[in-house]
C-alpha cells in the first residue's frame, strides 16, 4: 500500500465548543496522498482540533472532511479509525500490556491470526529500530525514546495508509527527538504514508514537512513548502522565522 490515493480534504470546516467559542474557522485544506503535511501553530491555534476531526475524536460543527474522497461522517467511525494510525505526545501505551501486545492492538482487534500479528510486531520493531527481545517487556520498563518508538510502531500496526501525529516527539530530550525525527523521515521514505503532523516547533516543521500549514487562532494563514515558507512575505511567518533563527543547517540535513 503506497498510500498515494489516501488524501484528506477539509472543506469549509468549522468547529465550535459547546460554550460557543469557535476553535476552527472555515478551514480549507488539502492533504495529498503520501505527503507529510505539518500543521504548525501555537497553543490554541486549533491544530490538534483539526487533527482530531480527521479520525472523528471530534465531530466538525460545519463543513465536511473527505477521507479518500469519502465524507468522514459516512465512514463507520471504528473502520475509519482503524484505517488511520494515531500517535500522540503522551503516547498512551497500555501499561498493563506488553510491548508486543501494545503494538499488536489494532491487528488483534481486527482479528488477524496470531502468527501474523507476531510477525507484524517483529517487523514493526525492526522498522522503528527496537530490539526484538523488547516484546515481552512492559511500557514502564522502557525509556521515553523507546516508548515513543513503540507509540509510532503501534500507530503503524495494521499498516494504515494515513497517519495522524500530534507532537509525537514533543516530550523527548533534544537529542532523542532529533534521532526520532530523522528516523521518522527515513521511515516515511519507505512507507509513503499520508501524514498529518501537528507541531509548534518550526525546526521540526521544516525538517519533516512536505508542506507546512500555518494556523493562527483557528484560521489557516498560509500553506507552503518549507523553502517557500522561509521566503514568505506573510508577516506572521516572518515572525516565526525570526523567532527560530537560521534554517540552512536544518534543510541541509535532509
Amino acid at each position, binding site marked *: 500500500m503506497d498510500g498515494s490515493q489516501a488524501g484528506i480534504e477539509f472543506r469549509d470546516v468549522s468547529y465550535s465548543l459547546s460554550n460557543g467559542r469557535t476553535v476552527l474557522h472555515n478551514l480549507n485544506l488539502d492533504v495529498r496522498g503520501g505527503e507529510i503535511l505539518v500543521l504548525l501553530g501555537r497553543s490554541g491555534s486549533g491544530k490538534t482540533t483539526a487533527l482530531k476531526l480527521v479520525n472523528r475524536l471530534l465531530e466538525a460543527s460545519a463543513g465536511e472532511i473527505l477521507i479518500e474522497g469519502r465524507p468522514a461522517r459516512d465512514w463507520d467511525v471504528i*473502520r475509519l479509525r482503524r484505517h488511520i494510525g494515531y500517535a*500522540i505526545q503522551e503516547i*498512551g501505551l*497500555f501499561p*498493563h500490556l506488553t510491548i508486543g501486545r501494545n503494538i499488536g*492492538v489494532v491487528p488483534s482487534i481486527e482479528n488477524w491470526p496470531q502468527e501474523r500479528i507476531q510477525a507484524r510486531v517483529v517487523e514493526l520493531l525492526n522498522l522503528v529500530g527496537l530490539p526484538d527481545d523488547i516484546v515481552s517487556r512492559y511500557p514502564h520498563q522502557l525509556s521515553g525514546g523507546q516508548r515513543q518508538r513503540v507509540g509510532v510502531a503501534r500507530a503503524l500496526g495494521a499498516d494504515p495508509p494515513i497517519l495522524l501525529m500530534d507532537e509525537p516527539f514533543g516530550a523527548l530530550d533534544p537529542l532523542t527527538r532529533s534521532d526520532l525525527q530523522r528516523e521518522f523521515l527515513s521511515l516515511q521514505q519507505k512507507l509513503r504514508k499520508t501524514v498529518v503532523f501537528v507541531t509548534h516547533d518550526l525546526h521540526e516543521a521544516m525538517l519533516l514537512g512536505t508542506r507546512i500549514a500555518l494556523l493562527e487562532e483557528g484560521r489557516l494563514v498560509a500553506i507552503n513548502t518549507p523553502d517557500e515558507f522561509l521566503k514568505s512575505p506573510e508577516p506572521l511567518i516572518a515572525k516565526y522565522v525570526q523567532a527560530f533563527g537560521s534554517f540552512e543547517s536544518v534543510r541541509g540535513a535532509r
Partner: protein
Amino acid sequence: MNFWNFVTQNRTEIAELTLEHLWIVGISTLLAIAIGIPLGILITRKPALQKPVIATANIIQTIPSLALFGFLLPAPWIGERAGRLAILALTLYALLPLIRNTYAGIKGVDTAVTEAARGMGLTDWQLLFQVELPLAASIILAGVRVSMVMSIGLATIAAAIGAGGLGELIFRGLAMVNNAVILAGAVPAALMALAADTILGWLEKRLSPQRAG
C-alpha cells in the same frame, strides 16, 4: 465454662454457624458485585447519574443496620425468610464501596491511554474490557475487600432478626452474660474478616498494573 471448653464441646455448631455466616456474606458480596460494578461503570458513561447514584448508596450506608433490617421486614418474599432479609441488607451496604471504587478506578485511567485507544478504533466495549477494567481492577478489588470485611462484621447483627450466622453465638452469650460464648462467635468472625482482607489484599497487589515484569 472457659472458651476452649465451649469451643471444643460445640465445634459442630460453631462450624455450621461459620458456614452460614460465610454463605450470607458470600452471596451478598456476589450480589453487590453484580449490581455495584455495572452501576459504577454506568455512571462513568452517564455523568448526570453520578451524583444521584452515589448519594443513594451513601444514604443507604448511613442507615443503622438494625434499623435497615427492621425496614426490610415488611417487604414481600424478602421479609418471609430472615436469611433473605440479611442478604438483601448486606448487599445494600456493600454497594457503596463497589460503586465508588469502580467509578474512581475507571476515571483514574490516564486520559492519554483512553484517547489513544479510541483513536486507534477500539469500540466502547473493547475500551471497557481490554483497557479500563483491567487498569481499574486493583481499585475495584479494593472496593470488594472493604465491602466484604465490612459485611463479615455486619452479618453478626443479622442474627438479631434470626438470620443465623456467628452473631447467634454473640447474642446468646450476651443474653447468658457468658464471655466464652460471645468469643466463640466473635473470634471466628474476626478470623474470617482477617482472612478475607489478606486474600483480597494479595489479589489486589497481583492485579495492580504497575507490577514489575
